[in-house]
Structures are given as structure tokens and as C-alpha cells.
């Protein structure tokens, strides 16, 4: 009876072992689905596969020994087994063996570090990424746009909101240099298919370079927990051919220079997760207009206040002042007096750093 029970336990042990081995293999296959979409990621994937094979062999060997010992040496009588206390040669062997294995793995990793961290002095495109709670701004260094008459031209930038993540275009097969900065807390730029992430740290600039090898749309998001809407910090990288990239640049510049390129619902703005759903508003010049503001943040006060410029010294319309707030979920309609054509600035008085935008009147 007792023997029979032990056998049954043994077969359960074996069953679990098989299931575990199966899932481990599955994990390896899943790892194969992201083979690395950049030149820098290819050696990383290669290294991962080496580690995976070594890990699997060690797992099968050691788990096998554990289960073998557990099944083979079950107590069958009351005699005392031989009382051996140790063997120095064996200890030496199983210290040296793993030491050699980890030394080799370290050497392989060391080589790949230099490939992943290599930076060319003449990248084709330089993108300055700024992380903030809770989105990204990608600025193309040297791609100048004349956004305002009389002002020096600015670098083209793509800024997202939680409701509308940024769509970033980059050319395939060319070296792209990223400089990373953060406005508030630590974020991390993570693109799973590039097998890479690097933190954006306030007070410190990080940089890295990639060369995307395959055209496609790559999802990315923040990997370093950064507060309330951390999980909403998505972005998309569109890797396209050089001509398509140039066409996109030209198109973006034209839209930016002409005013507000993306305001498809004039007169409306919403707030969610302490962010506006759009960063520019387009309105007609020299006639009063209304602005419907929908605050979707339950329990959080927001408003929309229009100013002449970023210094926010002179209020032009929107809310009647910093005390004029609405707490979501709620909607209100602001009346804005006629404004001459030009570019103005708006923000939420409660969140003047993170909730900002441009009002284009023409």
C-alpha cells in the first residue's frame, strides 16, 4: 500500500517535470519571435540564444539529478545508508566547471556590450527624446521649421499625449543617434523589438545609437515606473525608406509652418490622465469663439487658460483665472474674445508644466 502511494507520487513528480520542461522550451520559442529589428539587436539575440541553450542544458541536467535522486533513493528498508561526508575533488570539480561556464558567458557578453554601446561620430539622424509625465517628445536635431514670424526657426518635434501617442518616423538602414533627457522623474525608452531600453534621467543626458534593419511599425513604451499614467506612455516608431522619411519630414514641416496640423475638432479639448488630448488648437482670427473643455479626470481639477506666450504673463481668455477650475468628470464652455492672427500659448493653471499647448489663430 505504502509502496504504491510512493509510486503514484513519483509519477506526479515526473508529470510536473515534463510540463515544466515543455513550458521552458515554449519560452525559448517565444524568445525567437523577437529576433531583433536593429543591427545592434542581432548580436543580443544571438547571445540570448546561446544563454538559452546553456541554461536549458544546465536546467535539464540539474533538475534531472534532483528528480533522479528523489525517485531512485527512496527509503526501502531501515538500514542506515553509507554516511559519506564529502569529497574535495568533487567540490573542486563543481566549482571549476561552473566557473568556466560563467567566464565564457561573461566574455561573450563583454563583446556584445561594445557592439551595443558603440557610437558612430557621424549619425545620419539625431533625435533628442524628452520624457515627461506621461509622454514623450521627439525632436529632430537640425530639421528647422519656421513656426513663427520673426522668431528663430525651431527643430521639428513630435510630441504625444496619453490619448494620442507620438508617431515617430525614422529611416531604415541609417545610423540614428538618440539623446535622452527627462523633465521630471526617471523614465525608460523601451522598444521590445529592438531588444533595448535606456533610462531617461533628470539632470543627466544618456545617448545611444541604433540602425533599424527592417521597415515596419514598432511599438515602444516607458519601462521605468514613473507614476500615475506610466502604463499609458506608448509611442510608435515607423521605420521607412529614406525617400518616405524625407517626404514625411517635408510634410511635417509644411504642416507645422502653416499652424496647427492636427486639430480636426476645432473648439474642443479634453483632459485625461493629467494631459490634454491635443497640443494645438486652431481658431479663426478676429472673431470671438468658444472652447468646450471636457475634464475626464475624476476628482482632479483642471482648466484651460490662454496666454500671449510661454511666460504666461498676460491672460487672453479661457478660464477667468487660476481659481476658475472644474473637477472632472465635467464639461464647461469658455468664451474667448476675438484675437488677431498669430500663435498663442495655453495651459492648465494646475499643471502648467505638463499640460501645455499652442493656439494658432489665422
Amino acid at each position, binding site marked *: 500500500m505504502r509502496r504504491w502511494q510512493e509510486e503514484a507520487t513519483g509519477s506526479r513528480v515526473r508529470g510536473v517535470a515534463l510540463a515544466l520542461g515543455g513550458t521552458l522550451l515554449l519560452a525559448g520559442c517565444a524568445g525567437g519571435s523577437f529576433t531583433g529589428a536593429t543591427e545592434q539587436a542581432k548580436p543580443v539575440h544571438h547571445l540570448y540564444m546561446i544563454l538559452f541553450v546553456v541554461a536549458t542544458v544546465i536546467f535539464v541536467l540539474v533538475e534531472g539529478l534532483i528528480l533522479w535522486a528523489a525517485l531512485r533513493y527512496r527509503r526501502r528498508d531501515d538500514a542506515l545508508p553509507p554516511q559519506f561526508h564529502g569529497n574535495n575533488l568533487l567540490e573542486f570539480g563543481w566549482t571549476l566547471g561552473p566557473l568556466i561556464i560563467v*567566464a565564457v558567458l561573461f566574455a561573450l557578453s563583454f563583446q556584445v556590450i561594445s557592439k551595443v554601446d558603440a557610437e558612430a561620430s557621424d549619425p545620419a539622424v539625431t533625435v533628442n527624446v524628452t520624457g515627461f509625465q506621461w509622454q514623450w517628445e521627439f525632436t529632430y536635431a537640425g530639421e528647422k521649421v519656421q513656426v513663427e514670424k520673426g522668431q528663430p526657426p525651431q527643430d521639428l518635434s513630435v510630441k504625444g499625449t496619453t490619448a494620442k501617442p507620438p508617431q515617430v518616423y525614422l529611416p531604415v538602414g541609417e545610423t540614428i543617434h538618440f539623446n535622452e533627457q527627462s523633465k521630471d522623474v526617471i523614465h525608460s525608452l523601451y522598444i521590445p523589438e529592438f531588444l533595448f531600453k535606456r533610462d531617461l534621467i533628470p539632470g543627466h543626458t544618456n545617448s545611444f545609437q541604433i540602425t533599424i534593419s527592417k521597415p515596419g511599425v514598432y511599438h515602444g513604451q516607458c519601462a521605468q515606473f514613473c507614476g500615475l499614467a506610466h502604463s499609458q506612455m506608448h509611442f510608435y516608431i515607423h521605420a521607412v525608406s529614406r525617400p518616405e522619411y524625407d517626404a514625411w519630414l517635408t510634410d511635417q514641416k509644411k504642416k507645422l509652418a502653416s499652424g496647427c496640423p492636427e486639430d480636426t475638432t476645432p473648439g474642443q479639448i479634453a483632459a485625461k490622465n493629467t494631459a490634454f488630448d491635443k497640443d494645438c488648437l486652431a481658431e479663426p482670427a478676429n472673431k470671438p469663439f468658444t472652447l468646450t473643455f471636457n475634464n475626464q479626470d475624476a476628482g482632479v481639477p483642471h482648466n484651460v487658460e490662454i496666454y500671449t506666450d510661454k511666460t504666461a504673463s498676460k491672460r487672453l481668455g479661457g478660464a477667468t483665472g487660476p481659481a476658475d477650475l472644474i473637477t472632472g468628470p465635467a464639461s464647461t464652455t469658455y468664451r474667448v474674445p476675438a484675437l488677431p492672427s498669430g500663435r498663442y500659448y495655453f495651459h492648465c493653471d494646475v499643471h502648467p508644466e505638463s499640460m501645455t499647448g499652442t493656439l494658432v489663430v489665422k
Partner: protein
Amino acid sequence: MAITEVRPEAAPSGSPAIGYQRHPIWEWLTTTDHKKIGIMYLVNSYIFFAVAGLLAMFIRTELAEPGTQFFSEQQYNELFTMHGTTMIFLFVIPILAGFANYIVPLQIGALDMAFPRVNALSFWMLPLAGVILYSGYLVGGTACAGWTEYPPLSEQGCTGPGVSGLGADLWIIALLLVGTSSILGAVNFITTIFNMRAPGMTMFRMPMFCWTVLVTQLLVLLATPVFTSALVLLLIDRNLGGSFFEPAKGGIAVMWQNIFWFYSHPAVYVMVLPGMGIVSEILPVFSRKPLFGYKAFVFATAGIGALGFSVWAHHMFATGTVLLPFFSLMTFLIAVPTGVKFFNWISTMWKGKLTFNTPMLFAVGFLSMFLIGGIDGVFLASPPVDFALHDTYWVIAHLHYVLFGGSVFAVYAGFYYWFPKFSGRKLGEGLGKLHFWLQMIGFNLTFFPMHILGLLGMPRRVQDYLPLHDWTGINQLETVGAYIIAVSTAPFLANVVMTLRRKTRDEENPWDANTLEWATTSPPPPHNFDSLPEIHSERPLFDLHHADELAVHADATTTSTTGAH
């Protein structure tokens, strides 16, 4: 066999009690008996384990579907912050300290800890810390920046509807208490082990559990003060206008990470080494053999402790601010002493006579699961691979294979093993085995698929995820697994209650174990021992009971590494 009289004045059992009788509740509240304090550590820690486990169920429930179902972002961020903080600081570290409290003085043949009142103080700080930590729920929100509380996020505090931001200060104060408790405990354990061993109990005759506790407490003594200083700096930054970690005012944000991990990485070994010690007690007993390679095991434990201080920045590879090759090499190296331990454990079972009572099942479960946590951690030691996997669910899988597959399995193994010592009764085998298998299945169902989620790019600490790459199906599987883990604690609790209500008692040494804690009654008297056997090896009771067999196997023992003489 000569007997060492340790308490010649001790009253023989059955004689009237000396002194006045106190009410049992008052007796427990004021006790300085290491055994009672140990039990209180175990119970208090298990309550926090249950609370943090409940939070984990909430986390898994929210993650079963993309979108927001049950918890807002703010609530979710509080959930995982409190889950991690509670599990680490109020469950794993103190419950192992609880075992050490009860068992170490008995194993070295001491009457109590070196500083019994300090011991009581160390314990009572913990429930207080827990109450302070959880009082955040009463004052507008708990801490919410993750158990790592990285500034500047933790300095900024939580933002959201009705959130006071006081939670982070409560978190700091609670951890200052836990840290102080740990430091006092470390001084106490180290003094006890160095100075209070019974005659004949040399360092190299100490049971392996005592060795792991000693190394653990040295780690605590060296690392925890560093962490508590960082907590004070954070408190100053948050409340008195300091700027240690605030870059806008000239501070350095990643400095916190360096200090935090300088403590928290050794703390991982604080959470695992005593578990390894427990398993090293159980495997020999249920294999009826001595621990294979005792000295190698001691050196491996010390090696892990020493290397543990030079690997902290592997948590920071993705910050781009650390020396990658050094910390990578050190992290790879720490796999070597861990490997040595595995081979010694397997050799301990090799050619033994194994019985699979519940403690042994959990101990072998520890070996099988901790192995996975060791192997998937090696991937993270390689900086390029870490760039891909850092802060994804791979890391969540890894840390749970270490802390659940490792520590929790070891804690249950120790609990089933020493329960007869605590109570005089063995826990039921049927319910124990049911508990083990349910937990084994639930654990692997919950945490193994997290490796795949990590490879597919799902970041940790997200309340919501996109319906991408089949993430949903994997998450649902994990949620089912988590519920099975929750269910698995029911047979355990039922077992404890039913066993304690049982009138009959089991024999004093039901496992035929060989260390000194089994040389006294179960449970032991307040003064622990009426008499002690002679101590010639790390297995004094084996020497006592198997003198004949020892003579037969003399050839094997002459090559002993234990230095018996």
C-alpha cells in the same frame, strides 16, 4: 555517553512553578523568551504574508484583462507598492528571523538569545511598522512609487484624486523601524552565535542553518545602516527641503539607486540564505545522511555573502550610469557558489534513504524551483540581454522564482519540519501534501508564463496593457495560477488549526533528526535544556544514537570534512 549539565538548578518537570503566574496574554506581550518571540515573529509575518498575498490577488485580477476593470491607476500603483514592500520587509525577512529566533539558540545549545530584551524590542517594532505602513490607507493613500521608491518620483509623491502624498513618509518611517529592528536583531544573533555556543559546539560543528543565519546577520549589520541613512536623506528631501536626490536642486537621482541596491541586493541573500539553511537541515534528516561537503557549504555561503556586496549595480544596467563589465562579472561569479550548494544538496540525497514527508517535499520543491530562479537570473547578469529584459515581466518571474520558489518553499519546509518542535504535534501529512501540490502547480502556472510575457516586451508595474501579441491569454493563465496559490493556503491553515486542537502528542523527535534542538522536549522548557549530550560533530544526536553504526562506517568518517575529533 557523558552528559553536560547546563542547569543543575533547573526544577525537575512536574514541580511547582517558581515565581508568580501571569495571565497568558500578558505573558506573551512581555516575554523575552526567544521561543515565544520566535513564534510571534512567525505569526506576525504570516499575517502580513496573507495581507500582501491578498493584494497580489487584486493585482492579478486587474491584469486578467486589458483596460481598467477594478482598480484605478492610483489604486493599482498602491497595490504593487504595498505588495512588494510588505512581502519583503514584513514577511520574508522577519519570518526567517522568526525561525532563527526560535531555532538558533536551541541548535547551539544556548539558554536564550544574548540580549533577550533587545530581542523583544526587535520584534515589537515590526507590527508597529506594519501598522504605520498600512495607515496610509486611512490618510489618503499609501506609498505608490513601487517598493524601490525611486526618487524623484518618490519625492514628488503621488498625484491623483484625493491623494495626500503622506503615504511615502509613512513608508519611510515604517522602513526605518524595520531597519532598526533588523540591525538590533543582527547584533543579537551575531553575539549569540559567537558567544553562547554550548561546550563542544565549535564553529565548524554548528548546524548549517546557524551558519546561514550568521552570514545573513553579518550582511544585515553591514548593509542595513546604509539603507536607513538613505531613508533619512529621502525623508529630509521630502519634508525639510533637502536636495540629495532632486536634480532640479543639484541632487543626483541615481544616487538613491546606488545606495538602495547596495542594501537591497545583499538583502536578497538575507531573504534566501536562511532558506538554504533550512533546506540544508531537512535534506540530511530525510535522507538519513550527513550534509555533503559541510565546509564547502560554509565557504559557499560566505562567498555568496561577500560577492553579494559587489553586484548591486546589475539592477541599474539600463540607467547607462554604471560600469557594466565589473558588475556583470561579479554577478556571473555569484552563480558559482550557488552551483556548489546545488551539487552538495543533490549529493546529500545521493544514495540516501529518502522519505517524502511534507518538509522534504517542500525542500525538494525548493531545489527544483530555486534552480529556475538561479538560471533565469543569469540572463540578467549579461548587460546586453538585460537591456532587453530589465523592468519586464521576466524580472518579475525571476524574483518570484527566487523569493517564492526559493524562500516561501523553504519557509513552509521549515514550518512543517519544526512544527512538532513548536507544538509537540506533527502537521497532518494528507493536507500537507495537498498544500504542496496545489502550491507547486499554482506557483508555476502564475510565474513561469511571466518569462514569456517579458520576452514579448510587457513592462512591469503597468495597470493596463495593450491587447498585443497574446499578452491577454498569458495574463489570464497567470491569474488562474494566482488563485490556485491562494486556495493552496486553505489546507495549510486547516492543518495548523486541526493539529493544534488535537489532544494527542507525537514523540519528541518525530523525524529522527540529529541537531540539538531535538535533544530537549517538544516544546522545550523556558530554559531550553535540562541537559545536553556531548558534542563531537554537527550531528550530536546521531553520534548519541548510532555509536554502533559509526564504528562500522569509520572508514567513511575518517575522511570527514567536519573536523570531528
